[in-house]
C-alpha cells in the first residue's frame, strides 16, 4: 500500500495523479474464509479491521450487497460524542471516540475527525436535571463533559437564540472532545486498510442464505455462489431481520426511516455541534459549509430509504426557532436511511442461537459515532467467541432478563 501524505500527493502530481493505486482491491471471492462479515458499512469494516489488528485474524471476507459504506455510514449527520448516561453505552461510545482521535493516523487516511465540541442544550427544567445527571455520570465514566450556562452556550455558538419565546436555553451538556468526521472516509479508510491486510471486500454480492450444520454456521450462499466460513458476523443494520431469518432466529429489531437534510453551503458560522432534544433537532456545519440537520424517525416499518415529509417540516421549524438565521438558508437536499431500532434503543453485540454466528445491529439513529468502538468490541467477541467487557452488556439475553440499557431516560415525563 502506497502511503498517503502531502509528499505523495506532490509526487503523484508530476504525473497528473495517474500513478495512484486502488484504495482497495476488488477480488473474486475465495471458497472459504475463517471469518465472513456480512455488511461493508462502517461497523462491518471496523469489525474486520480490528479482527486483523487486535487478534491477528486476517483470513476475512466482508461481503456487501451494494457498495461499501453505502448504507447508514454514508447517510448520517456525522456526529461523534460519548456523553451517554448508562455505563455500558458510555464505555463503548467513549472507546469509539478515543479511537476516532487517532483514526486518521492509524488508517493513514484522513477521516477529518474534528473535535469541535458537541453541546446538548437543555430547554426545560426537566432537561436541565437530566443533563446534570449525565454530567455526574460521565465524570465517573471517564467521559469529559460539563454542564454549562446559557451565556457560555451563546459564546460557543453565537447563532443560537438563547432567549427564545417558547424554549429558552437553560444550559447545556458540553462535550468539548466530541465533534464530527467525514463519514464516507471512515468506511473508505477502513476498507483500504482491510484490503491491505489481505482481507477481501466483496461488493455487489448479496447473501441469499446461511449454511449450517448441527446448529453451527458453515458458510453463506451468495449471488456469486457459496462461500464457507468458520465464523459469521452479521452487521447489516436495517436488514438485520432478513439475515436473522436466514439464520433461523428473530431479533428485537424494527426497521424505520430516519431523515436528514443539508442547506446550501455558506461561509463558516458555527463551530460546534448542537443537539436540541426538546424540539427534536440537531445541527452542525460541514467543512464544505452546509448546515447539516438531523430529523426524526417514522413510526412505521419501512425499507424505502424515504421518510415522511412532516418530520422534515417539524425539524426545520424547530431549528429555525432556535437558530433564527437559518430561516433564509435553503434546503439543498434531504434523504433517508433505514435504521434498526431495538426494544430499548440500544445496540446488540451478541452471540446468537446459531453457533459461531454473531450479530452487531440495533444502532438505530446513533451508529456512526460508535463505529470504531463497535468494531473493536465486535472483533473481540468474534475472535474469542464470547464478549469482552465492552460488548457484554449488549447481549440479546438482556431482553429476557429485563436488563435494558435505556438512554431515553432523560426524556422521561415530568409532573
Amino acid at each position, binding site marked *: 500500500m502506497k502511503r498517503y501524505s502531502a509528499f505523495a500527493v506532490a509526487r503523484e502530481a508530476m504525473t497528473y495523479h495517474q500513478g*495512484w493505486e*486502488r484504495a482497495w482491491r476488488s477480488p473474486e471471492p475465495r471458497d472459504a474464509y475463517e471469518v465472513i462479515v456480512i455488511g461493508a458499512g462502517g461497523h462491518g469494516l471496523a469489525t474486520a479491521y480490528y479482527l486483523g489488528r487486535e487478534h491477528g485474524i486476517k483470513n476475512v471476507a466482508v461481503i456487501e450487497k451494494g457498495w461499501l459504506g453505502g448504507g447508514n455510514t454514508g447517510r448520517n449527520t456525522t456526529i461523534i460524542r460519548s456523553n451517554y448516561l448508562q455505563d455500558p453505552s458510555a464505555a463503548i461510545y467513549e472507546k469509539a471516540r478515543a479511537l476516532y482521535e487517532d483514526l486518521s493516523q492509524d488508517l493513514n487516511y484522513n477521516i477529518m475527525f474534528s473535535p469541535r465540541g458537541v453541546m446538548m442544550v437543555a430547554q426545560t427544567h426537566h432537561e436541565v436535571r437530566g443533563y446534570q445527571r449525565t454530567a455526574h455520570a460521565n*465524570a465517573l465514566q471517564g467521559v469529559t463533559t460539563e454542564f454549562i450556562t446559557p451565556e457560555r452556550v451563546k459564546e460557543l455558538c453565537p447563532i443560537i437564540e438563547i432567549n427564545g419565546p417558547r424554549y429558552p436555553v437553560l444550559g447545556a451538556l458540553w462535550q468539548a472532545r466530541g465533534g464530527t468526521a467525514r463519514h*464516507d472516509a471512515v468506511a473508505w479508510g477502513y476498507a483500504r486498510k482491510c484490503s491491505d491486510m489481505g482481507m477481501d471486500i466483496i461488493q455487489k454480492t448479496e447473501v441469499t442464505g446461511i449454511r449450517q450444520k448441527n446448529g453451527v454456521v458453515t458458510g453463506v450462499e451468495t449471488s456469486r455462489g457459496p462461500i464457507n466460513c468458520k465464523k459469521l458476523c452479521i452487521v447489516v443494520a436495517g436488514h438485520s431481520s432478513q439475515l436473522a431469518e436466514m439464520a433461523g432466529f428473530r431479533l428485537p429489531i424494527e426497521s424505520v426511516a430516519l431523515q436528514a437534510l443539508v442547506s446550501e453551503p*455558506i461561509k463558516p458560522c458555527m463551530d460546534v455541534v448542537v443537539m436540541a432534544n426538546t424540539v427534536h433537532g440537531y445541527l452542525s456545519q460541514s467543512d464544505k459549509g452546509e448546515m447539516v440537520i438531523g430529523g426524526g424517525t417514522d413510526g412505521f416499518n419501512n425499507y424505502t430509504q424515504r421518510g415522511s415529509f412532516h418530520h422534515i417540516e417539524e425539524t426545520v421549524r424547530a431549528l429555525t*426557532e432556535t437558530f433564527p438565521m437559518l*430561516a433564509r*438558508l435553503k434546503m439543498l437536499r434531504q*434523504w433517508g436511511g433505514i435504521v434498526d431500532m431495538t426494544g430499548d434503543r440500544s445496540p446488540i453485540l451478541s452471540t446468537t442461537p446459531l453457533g459461531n454466528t454473531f450479530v452487531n445491529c440495533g444502532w438505530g439513529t446513533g451508529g456512526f459515532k460508535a463505529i470504531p468502538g463497535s468494531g473493536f468490541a465486535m472483533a473481540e467477541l468474534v475472535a474469542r467467541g464470547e464478549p469482552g467487557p465492552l460488548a457484554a452488556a449488549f447481549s440479546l439475553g438482556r431482553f429476557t432478563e429485563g436488563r435494558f440499557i435505556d438512554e431515553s431516560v432523560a426524556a422521561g415525563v415530568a*409532573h
Partner: protein
Amino acid sequence: MSTRLTRAGRLIDPTRPLEFRFNGKRLRGFAGDTLASALLANDQMLVGRSFKYHRPRGIVASGAEEPNALVNMGAEGRFEPNQRATTTELFDGLSATSQNHWPSLEYDIGAINTHLARFLPAGFYYKMFIHPRPFWKHVYEPFIRQSAGLGRAPKARDADRYEHFYAHVDLLIIGGGVAGLQAALTAGRAGRRVLVIEQTPHWGGRAPVDGGEIDGQPTEAWIGDALAALSEMANVTLRNRTMGAGIYDHGYALGYERVSDHAPDGGDAPRHRLWRIRARHILSATGAIERPLSFAGNDLPGVMLAAAMRDYLVDYGVSPGDRTVVVTNNDDAYRTAIALKEAGLEVPVIADARDHATGPLAERARGMGIRVETGMGIAAVKGGKRVTGVALCAQAGEGAAREYVACDAVAMSGGWSPVVHFWSHCGGKLTWDRAGAMFRPDADHPPTGQDGLPMVTAAGAANGAMMLDACMADAVAQARLATIAAGGKARKTAPPEVECAAEQAIEPVWIMPQGAPIEARSKMWLDFQNDVKVSDVQLAAREGYESVEHTKRYTTLGMATDQGKLSNINGLAVLSDALNAEIPATGTTTFRPPYTPISLASLGGEAHGELFQPIRKTPIHDWGDANGADWEPVGLWRRAYAYPRDGETVEQAVAREVTNTRENLGLLDASTLGKIIVQGPDAGRFLDMLYTNMMSTLKPGRCRYGLMCSENGFLIDDGVVARIDDQTFLCHTTTGGAERIHGHMEEWLQTEWWDWKVYTANVTEQFAQIAVVGPNARKLLEKLGGMDVSPEALPFMAWADGQIGGFDIRAYRISFSGELSYEIAVPASQGRAFWDALMTAGQEFGVMAYGTEALHIMRAEKGFIMIGDETDGTVIPQDLGLDWAISRKKDDYLGKRAQVRSFMANPERWKLVGLETLDGSVLPDGIYAVGQGRNANGQANVIGRVTSTYHSPTLNKGIAMGLIQRGPERMGEVVEFARTDGGRIPARIVSPVFLDPEGERQNV
C-alpha cells in the same frame, strides 16, 4: 462583450427600466429581466468564483440548472446567500454581491488554488493533513472551512412572512410548458380537478424560443390559446412562479411558490408559500436540461450552454458575445447559431463533433453563410476572466490544434437530459436511451402509489420526447393515461399538427477531443461549481471508487447547489468509460427532493414565534400572568413554577410559598392534572388490569392512590382514582400523562379487551382543579359556605359533590403536600371565578398561590414520589418501596409478568431512600453515589443516585430522595456522592419521609 441588443426580447418591457446594484455598481435593466440577463446586458459576464479553486465563473445557463451565478442578495433581515441569478427576477432597487472571493471578485487571493490545482485533485484531503494530529483541528480544517462555503451566513432574524397552503387535486401537473398545458387541456376537459404549477413566471416553457408551429400557428399563439381555454375551466388551477419541489409517497407533493421574491416591497404578501398537495396522480412535464461538453477550458466566463445563449437572445434581447463559436454534437445548437446570425452577430464557426451534419438546421445555417466544420471539436479555450478564442481540433484525435479562432463567447451543446427528478423521487426507474444518449423514465418501472399502480406519468421532453412534434404527440398520449389514472375518462385523440425542423441524430460526446491527454482532461470541467474535472472522475475510478455514489462522494461531483443538473450525466459517462462499463450498468445517483433548493423558512410556514407550537392554558392562566408567574413549559402546558413578588428572587418566592402553605394557606392551580372517566360494567375489572393495585374494591365516594406500569414492567404514571359510582371511576394522571394514559387505556380496550364493556373519556380540560392546602384550608371553605367539609363528612381519601360559595364543585380530600388539603374541581368555565373567590375570601387566612416548585418541595418533604423524577422509564414500583400499592391477590395486571424477570427481581436493585448530607447542604441534582473500585471498562462503580434534591424551607436543610443499592437495608449508613470536580459529598441514608411521618397534619 455581452450587451443588450436594440431588438427587444420577448419577455422584456423596454418601457419599464429598472435600476439595480451589483457589487455596489449601479446598473440598469428592464422589467422582465432576470438578474442574469440584466448582468449580461451590462457586460457583467464574471459573476462569481468557484468553490475549490476560486476560478472565475460566468453565467453558463438560463434556468434552475445554473451552477455559477450565485449571489448574496438583500440586507439585514432580508439578506440571503446563494440566490441563483438566472431564476431571480429583476426588481427596482435589487442589490446583489458576488460570492466566495477575497478581496474582490476581480482579484481573488483564493485563485492561487487554481495554480495549485494539480496538487489538489479529487479527494486530496483524504491523503493529506494526516500529521501531526492536532493540526487538522487547529490549522488545516479552519483553513479549508474558510475557503469553502459560498455565500455569507445571514445574521439577522428573517423579516419576511411565509405560509402553507393545502391542495387536493385529481391531477397535479408539474411544468407549464407545451406538454404540461396540453395535458391540462386533456384532463381539464375530462372534468378532473387539475393543478398546473410552473416554476418560472412564464408559460409555454422553451417552445417559443425554439420555434415551430402547433395546429398551424406559432407556438406562442398556441400557448396563448391554451391558457385562455384553461382559464375558462373552473376545475383547472394555473400557478406560475410555483416550482414542483418534491414528490413523496402516496401522492404527496410539494409546490414552492415564490409569491413576492420579485416584488419584495409588495405589501403584506408572504415571501414564499409552500403548497402541500395531495394528488391522485401526478404528471411530470418538466422538460429537459441541456448538457455541457467537456473540453479544456469549458468553464471560462463566456462559455455558455447553446440554448441558454438563445434564451438570452430571444427572451431578453441580450447577446452574450459579439463573436460566438458554436460547438455541438447535435442539431439543436444550430438553432442558436441561426438566432445569433439573425440578430446580426458573428458566428465564425460551428464545430460539430459528428462526422457529418446534413439535417435541415445544418443546411439552413450553411445557407446563412455560417461555416460548419464537422468531425471537429475544441482543443482548448483561451482567455482568463473571459473567453478570447478557441483552438479547434479533430474530435477523433488527441487535440492537436488545427486552427485558432478568436471569439468572445462559446455556445456549447452536449445534448439534452430529461428532467426525471419527479419520476425518480419515489423510486421510478430510468432506462438508458441509446439513440437519444439520455436517461429517460422507464415506463415499466414507474413510481407506485398506495394502490401499487403508477403514481407519476412523464410527458413530453421530460419523457425523452425532445422534438416538438414528438413532444406534443407524447403529451397527448400521456395526458390520456394520466387523466384515466386520475379517475377520469379520456378517449384516444390524435396529436395536434406540429411543424418543426427535423433533426439529425445526436452522437454522444463525453470528452472533447476523444483522445485528449491528461493535461487537457485536467482542464475539462464537469461540475463547474465544485471544480470537478474529467481527470478527477477518472482518478476516482482508478482508485477503486467504482460505484457512481463513491465517485460522487469522492470527487463531490453533483453535490453542488445545482445537485448535478448540469454535470451528472457527463460525469457518469466519463466514469463508465473509465470502468469500461456501459452507462446503464454504472447507473445514476439517487434523485432527492427538493428539485432546487427551497427556503427553510417556507418549511416552517407560519409556525414561528408565538405560533411555533400551541400553548395550553388553564382557566387560571391569566391570573398567573397578572401576578408575576414564572412560567415553566410542561408539555404544551404552561405551569407557574412560582409567583415571585416585587424584589423577590424565584428561590425566595418558592421558599415563601412553601412556608406559607405549611403555616397558613396555599392555592395551587392543579387544572393540568389529567382527569379520565372510566365507565361501564367492566370498569373495575379494567382498572384492575391497568393499575398495580386493586381498584375494583374501591367504594363509591372513596379515593385510592394507584400506580400504572407498562407491559414491560416500568412505572409510567401515578395518580388518585376516585370511584364515582358502581360503574364509574375518575382517574387522575400526571400533567404530562393525560393524553398518554388515555391513549394507553384506549389501546388496551380496543386491541386486547375489546369485549369488555368500558368507555373512557378524557375530561382534563372540562374541569379546573384547585388545591386548597394548609392548616387554614377548611376555614376558607367553611367561610365560603355550602357543603359540609368537616372531617366526619369528608374524611381523608374521600370525595363528595356539593356547592361551595355558590359554585358546583367536587371536592377530593387528597394531599400531595402532607397538609390538610382539598382538591376542588369546578367546570372549566367557572375555574377563574372560583379561584378569585378563594383568593378574596382567603385573604384573612393568609392565602397565597404556590407554584410547581413549592409543590415539588412539599411532596419531597413527605417522601412522595414524582413521576419523571423518581422514575425515568427504568424504575419499577418495587424500587420505590411501593410494594403496598401492588396487589398480591390479582392474577394479572399490566407489567406483572415483566416484574418477575431476573434483573427486576434482583435484590441488588437500587431502591428508594431519603438522603441527608452531614452538613445540611443540598446535594446536587443527578449526583451519583460511588462504591468500591472500577468496573471492567475502567468506570468507577456506582451504587446509587439522587432523584430529587431540594432545600427544605420547612426543615431548613437539604433533603434528597435517591435510589441506592439495597438502600432500605442500609438505613443510617453514610454513602459518598461524587461531584463532577472529583470531590466527594458524604450523605446519610434516612427514611424518605422527612416531615410528619404519622400523617398528623393531613388527617385533621
